[in-house]
Structures are given as C-alpha cells and as structure tokens.
C-alpha cells in the first residue's frame, strides 16, 4: 500500500548544523497524502529545526526534499509557500494591529494593488464555514483570543493554497476545549486530502489525533510508527531513550532536615496566566532534588519565586523554618539561598563588568571590601584571585568584561561566587546548558559536593539524563504543579515520560 503516488513529501538525510551543535543529523521523514503525522520529541530533539528547514527558514547543510516526487529547493518561506507548504508557528506570525482580512492578504501575490475587502471577507467566511468554525474577518487580531488567532493562521495558510500544513505545538497555547475543536478542524482537513504535520509532546493528544508518529531524539531519527500499533508507554520510551548514561559516584549520607518547603504556591508568568498552580515541594539538606518537565510548565517561575524574583500570589515558602515568602533577593541571600540562573550572562553575571567586579557582587557590601562609601579594589582582586585559583577558572584578563569568557568559565565563575557564600539551599537552573563535556562534568561534580556537605540542591533541567545522573529524587512538573516524585535510584523512564507528557498523575 506504500505506493510512491501516495507520498506527498519526502525529506531525505536532512542535516543541519549550528555552531557547536548538530540540530538534525541525517534525518529522514516522509508524509503521505491525507494523513496526520506527528513529530514527537523532547525540547532540543530537532523537531522545530526540521520543520524550519521545510518552511525555508533554514537551509539544510545536507539532504534533499521532494514534494510529490519532484525535488525542490526551498530557500525562503516564499519558496515553501509556492510549493504549497504552510507553517503555523508556535508564536503566531500575525500583525496585531491589522484586521483578519489584512493579515490574510499580507504577502499574497494573487491579490491586486487594491484590496477588495468584501471579496476577501467572503472567501475567509467560506473557508471557516467549510471547517465549521467562525471568525469575524473585520476584527483586529489583538481583539481575538489565542484560539481564534490560531484559526486565522490556519485560514491564512489555506488561503495561500497550502496542501501540507505544519503545526508547531499548536495546543501549547490552547484550552482543552479549543484543542478539541482544533482536532476537529484537522480531521476535516485530512478528509479533504490535505497532509498535516503535527508537532507535540503531549502523548494523549498525539495518540488521539495522528495516523503515524515519527520520533526524534537529540537531532536523530528514532523511528516512524503507526499510531495503531503502539502504546503511550512505548512511545514515551522512544521519546526519552531507554539508556541512562551512568550515575555519578556519590557518598551515602544521611538525609538532613527540611531546608526548603514550598506550600501551595501560586504565581503568574509574564503573560499574566497562572504559571504555578498550588505547587508544593520539599527539599532536604544533603539531597539533590531534580525537577524534570517540558519547558514552560512553570519551572522558571518556580525558581524565580524561591529566589525572590517573582511575586507569589498565594502560598508559602520557608527556608530552614523561616518564612521567606516574597522576601527580597537580598534577604534570601542572607538566609542562605543561592542561585545559578538559566540565563547566566543576563541574570547571573553582568556582561560588561569585569571578572573581579562580578566576583565581588555578593561581597562588596561587607568587610573587607566595603570601606564606608568606597570599595577596596585591592581586597576585591585578592578575593577574585582566590576564586579563580580554587575553581580553576581560565580568565585571560581579570579586568576585561566578563562576557569575553567562554561559557564554561562564566559558569564556573558564577558557581564559585555562589558557593563561596556557603549556601543552605542552592537553586541550579539548566546549569550545564551549552557547556562542553569538561565544564559539564565540573558543574555536576560541584553540585554533588555541595550535596555531600549537607546543602539542599534544587536542580531544574530539561535534560533528563542529567537529572537521573545527579539527583536523588526527581519531581516532575506539568502545568504548574508537581505531578509526581520518584526515587532516582529505581526509576522507570517510561513512567517519567508519561508524567512529563501529562498522561498520568495529573489531578483535575
């Protein structure tokens, strides 16, 4: 039944490299006519890169693309549009102050100089009617809900005659009801013979909507399977990989008392929606609590709340029994909370200040660096030298801006500065992201050392391997709450995968 004429799209041996990373490593992908095909994988698995290649945003370093058997060369989104490929990005490509009509005709070549709004409005309504939804063509985009905006995106691609639709995590921004409606639209389009590529990591959706599933992991193809012949559990395993690399050596130490307790924490994210949903978690001295989860499930907000960078709407945070709910970062620092933020050059360090100045940021208010209104730079230099030697940081020029250091050395400096404060609680957010093997190992070992010294460590990471390698317990976050905590020593990978994808453990 796999006749060539049924294939809409073939991507062969696609390789795309970025400095320091191979985002797609000889990936093969094929799409049949009239199928919904899911592209599944964790963050950084290469899904978006592969689709951006198809949309002409990236040009692949190797590999070829064929549409209906003909080789094509896609150099820009315009090229892709001409080959009837339409991508609906996660961040909508809509102009907020323009109307639906104007957004639809934007860049359309078939339209003349003068925009005949009435006729375009009729066509928009006709498309909407065909798929059983409604949209006001004259409404401005900013007046529409996120779900409605997504429909405008769909109309836009259909208007341009797309026969291959790519939807990049379309349900991430939708309510469950809106998601259901979207699936209805997708099934309708499928029955019309359109081919749909659906990117997601929510397993239940994937199982319900797709015909086939292609799984990517770390830029490589894991395999393509028929949805009917696979279970969620097997899929989770494919997505995450069955092999845990190795666990780092650790001393068996007695677990200390509770250092961090978060109770029923609620907080908003920057867009004003609830990011923490009555979240509770406890971390003890001498343990590393790994926080796993797909990006955007509230991990960032959790770290920010604990470090005083984000306001808690309700709930409590205590450190060593002292209530530090909505305390300032300064108070928290003196309470023994130290922080390795994900954005090391934006939040952790001041890019244009020197190594010495960055090193003294936690110390300059105290003796001996503080001399009344003045700072004793001699003492600051001595202190920085001490850190550089102790942590073996390669600093070419102590007085040059810290931004010229390599990523690994920046992270070492940041880690050194925070650890010298003798923390009681250390929050590390993606501490090894973008680091080379040596620096990664150093960071992980340092975290383990801190644990052995009785420090409570909260390790937030998207890299599940890292968490399993370093952590004692793993808490899985999904939609702003902890959906389960498992022992990292006896872990069931598939179980974690299911929890990350929201398939189990979610309370309504």
């Amino acid at each position, binding site marked *: 039944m796999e006749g060539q004429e049924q294939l809409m799209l073939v991507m062969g041996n696609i390789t795309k490299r970025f400095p320091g990373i191979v985002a797609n490593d000889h990936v093969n992908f094929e799409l049949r006519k009239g199928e919904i095909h899911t592209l599944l994988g964790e963050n950084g698995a290469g899904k978006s890169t592969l689709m951006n290649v198809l949309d002409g945003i990236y040009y692949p370093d190797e590999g070829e693309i064929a549409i209906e058997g003909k080789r094509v060369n896609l150099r820009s989104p315009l090229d892709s549009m001409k080959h009837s490929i339409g991508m609906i*990005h996660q961040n909508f490509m809509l102009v907020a102050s323009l109307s639906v009509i104007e957004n639809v005709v934007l860049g359309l070549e078939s339209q003349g100089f*003068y925009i005949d709004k009435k006729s375009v409005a009729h066509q928009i309504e006709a498309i909407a009617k065909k798929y059983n939804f409604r949209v006001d063509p004259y409404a401005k985009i900013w007046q529409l809900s996120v779900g409605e905006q997504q429909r405008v995106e769909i109309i836009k691609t259909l208007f341009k005659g797309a026969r291959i639709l790519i939807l990049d995590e379309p349900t991430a921004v939708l309510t469950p009801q809106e998601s259901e409606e979207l699936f209805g639209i997708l099934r309708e389009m499928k029955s019309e013979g359109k081919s749909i590529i659906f990117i997601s990591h929510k397993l239940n959706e994937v199982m319900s909507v797709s015909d086939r599933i292609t799984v990517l992991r770390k830029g490589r193809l894991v395999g393509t399977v028929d949805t009917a012949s696979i279970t969620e559990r097997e899929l989770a395993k494919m997505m995450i990989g069955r092999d845990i690399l190795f666990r780092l050596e650790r001393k068996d130490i007695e677990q200390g008392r509770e250092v961090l307790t978060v109770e029923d924490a609620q907080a908003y994210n920057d867009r004003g929606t609830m990011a923490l949903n009555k979240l509770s978690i406890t971390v003890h001295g001498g343990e590393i609590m790994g926080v796993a989860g797909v990006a955007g499930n509230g991990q960032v907000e959790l770290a920010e709340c604990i470090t005083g960078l984000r306001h808690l709407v309700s709930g409590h945070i205590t450190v060593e029994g002292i209530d530090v709910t909505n305390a300032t970062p300064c108070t928290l620092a003196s309470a023994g909370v130290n922080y390795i933020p994900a954005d090391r050059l934006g939040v952790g360090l001041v890019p244009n200040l020197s190594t010495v100045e960055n090193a003294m940021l936690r110390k300059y208010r105290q003796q001996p660096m503080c001399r009344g209104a003045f700072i004793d730079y001699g003492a600051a230099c001595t202190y920085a030298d001490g850190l550089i030697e102790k942590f073996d940081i390669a600093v070419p020029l102590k007085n040059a801006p810290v931004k010229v250091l390599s990523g690994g050395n920046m992270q070492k400096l940041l880690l050194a500065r925070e650890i010298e404060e003798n923390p009681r609680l250390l929050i590390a957010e993606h501490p090894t992201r973008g680091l080379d093997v040596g620096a990664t190992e150093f960071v992980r070992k340092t975290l383990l050392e801190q644990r052995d010294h009785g420090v409570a460590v909260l390790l937030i990471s998207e890299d599940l391997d890292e968490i399993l390698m370093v952590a004692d317990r793993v808490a899985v976050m999904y939609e702003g709450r902890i959906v389960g905590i498992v022992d990292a020593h006896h872990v069931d990978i598939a179980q974690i995968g299911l929890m990350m994808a929201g398939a189990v453990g979610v309370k309504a």
Partner: protein
Amino acid sequence: MNPTFGTILIKVLAGAIQSGTILLLPTLGEVLTERSGVLNLGLEGLMLIGAFFGFLGAIKTGNPYIGLLLGMVAAGAAAAIHAFICVTLRGNQTVTGLALTIFGAGLTSFYGDHWVSQRLTTAIKPMAIPGLSQIPVVGPILFSQDLIVYAGYILVALFWFLLFKTKVGVNLRAVGENAKAADAMGINVAGTRYFWTILGGALAGAGGAYITCCIHPYWLNGITSGKGWIAVALVVFAMWNPFNALVGGFLFGSIEAMQLQLQAGGTYINSALLSMLPYVTTFAVIIVATLIVRVRHVGTPKELGIPYAREEK
C-alpha cells in the same frame, strides 16, 4: 473696500494653509517612514538640506520648481544615509537621527554662509484654481494657493488610500508592526524600510525647499527654525494617519499665522512670548495625543525604532 475683520481673517487663514504645508510635508513623510518601523529624528536637518539645496537650485536655474526638486533629491540622499545606518547596519535610530539633524545644520550653514541675504528673483507663485477659487471664503483660503499646497492636499488623500486600502499599505504597516511576520510572508523588510525612509526624507526636503522657494525666497542659516521638530511631534499627534497630519499641520499653521498677525498688529504681548506659542502647543498636543493613543490601542507602530535581523540559532 476697507479691510474688514472678515478679509483679515481670510488672509490669516490663507497664510495658515501655507505655513501648515511647510509642516504637513515632513509630517506626512515621517508618518510613512515610522509606519515602516524606522524612526527618523533628523527631520530638522533634512528640512534644512532641502531648504538650502532648493534655494541653490532655484537661484542657479532661475526655476523654483527645479530648486524644489533638487531640495527633495538632496534630502532623500541624506535620508538614505539614515536608512543605511539604521536598516543595514542596525544602528541606533535615535542617535543617528540626531546626528542627521546636526549634519544638516552644519552642512547648510557652511555652504550657506556665502548665500546669506541673497534673494530669489522668481519664487513659486500662487495659482488660483479656476472655479473653486471663486467660492466665497473657502475659495481664497484653500484654492488661491500655489501648486505645492495643492500637492499637499493630493498627497494626503493618496497616502491615506495607499496606507489603508492597498496591498502596498498593508505590507508597509506589517513591516513596522511585526517585521518577523512580514518576513515570513515573503515581504522584503529591508527594502520596504529603505524606500519609505528615503521617500520620507524627500518629503521633509520638500517642506524645507517650500520655505526658500516660495514663502521666504532668501537664505538664512537655520531658516527652518525648529519646524522639523514640530513635524516629529505632529506625527504622534496624527497617530500615524495622513489625514490627521493634515489637520495637525494646518492647526499649527494657524497658530503660527495668528502669532505673526498679532505681532504685526502690535499687541501688548511680548513678541518672544508669542513666537514661543507653536512650541508650547507642541507640548500640549503631545500630551493629549499620548493619552489618546494609550486608550485607543492604536498608534505607535510596534516595532518603531527596532532594527530587524532574521534570527539564526
């Protein structure tokens, strides 16, 4: 007939239209430039360049229209420098705009010194429109003007239509509101920004040249006396709409004409205080416009002043 209050008023208002056109042209240009996402604070400099080269062209050729054209070309060329720095090099638009103002003032003072106090023998003359100019009151105010004023009327209508009714306008607005989305739709972002920045510059130049080729047909250093800055403020007042630019331009033209008339009529009010009037009004207008923009959810192009670069990982 003795000059009655009515005839004086008509004369003042006709003058207001002329003064208003000086402001209208750069404001219209800047409306379009800013709609494309480029902030050009160099209007004052561009107007000076337009005024000087307009004067130079007019005095050399004896034809004020050729002068006006030369003024537009020169200011357009200067705006192209702005576009190059802001679009291609992704420089800071505020600083570049200010530099452009200083550059325009410096350049025209340097070469203009030689021409100070020389007069044009032929300036642009009014051309009453047959028929329309016979209408009582409205005729002498609106339709007994020169060609540049009429061009101003036409450009307002033309740009309004272009901006809101055509694909060119949608593309232009999309580039200034969300360059990434426009790029994804296959619109040439850099090209769009270059085009409208240069056209905006040429219109600022036309505003300047209109001063020296018609209203005050002689050269003085700094002859634009801050009109470029008023135009920058008028863009906000106009809420980036060509029709409002017309209203704003003529409103300010009226204040200017009234202030001149009061001075000529010999009031007790200090003349320096009266000259301040347009600038004080600018403040008031900006405050009101800003409040309206905030409430109405329209106005400032979202990506005004933000350079665009296609991101690579």
